[in-house]
């Protein structure tokens, strides 16, 4: 099957996007979606040009530009609170439920 592609973006692409990507990877694994998703990271500046190749964007940065795919705010994964509704939104957006 074709894997769903998730792009995780943050301001510099070296810190929070990686932390969120790792956390998402673990959650996908725990919930049995590990083999169905591929996660990449980038900077917000790169996000616009890369977006079209992905099924979903998760970001920790403020974004006001329109994107060709859905953008979900992922700060909850950094602070460890309020993650469940965000996760449900992600799973739904990827067509997993």
């Amino acid at each position, binding site marked *: 099957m074709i894997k769903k592609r998730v792009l995780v973006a943050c301001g510099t692409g070296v810190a*929070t996007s990686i932390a969120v990507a790792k956390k998402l990877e673990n959650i996908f694994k725990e919930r049995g979606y590990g083999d169905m998703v591929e996660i990449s990271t980038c900077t917000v500046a790169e996000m616009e040009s890369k977006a079209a190749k992905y099924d979903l964007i998760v970001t920790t940065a403020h974004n006001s530009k329109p994107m060709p795919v859905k953008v979900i705010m992922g700060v909850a994964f950094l602070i460890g609170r309020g993650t469940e509704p965000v996760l449900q939104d992600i799973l739904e957006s990827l067509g997993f439920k």
Partner: protein
Amino acid sequence: MSQSLLNPKVILINIEAENRDEALTILADKLESEGFVKSSFTQAILDREDEFSTGLPGFGRGIAIPHADPQHVNMSVMAIATLRKSVQFRMMGNHDELIDVEVMFMLALKESHSHMSVLQSLMDVIQNESLLTHIKEAATPDALYALVSAHIA
């Protein structure tokens, strides 16, 4: 490659700052004077905070994780400062929300992927209310170093 990102030389206790930019500048300048970052780092931190804010609501205590592009960094390290009086940062991802920040974890990273585990453990620290309280109350850089290094490899 998995050497510690922590160094007591860049841990500051109870700094006195009137506002966010002053707090950021004190810690970034310290990183520069210790040689971890280039002279462009402080301005890069300030600019980046304006564009992509890094305040986070830790459990009961606001924290911030300011960072800048790798090109301004000489050697990867994580600087920490506790603030005598909190200063306001905008929340990460939501510029309308303000966070009263009491502890800053300033990341000077030369490259991304080698420090994955450190970032993961930093997130765990942020989510640990009692540890954050102990960090806020640490009396010396060495005490804070000991506290955090027990949780961050």
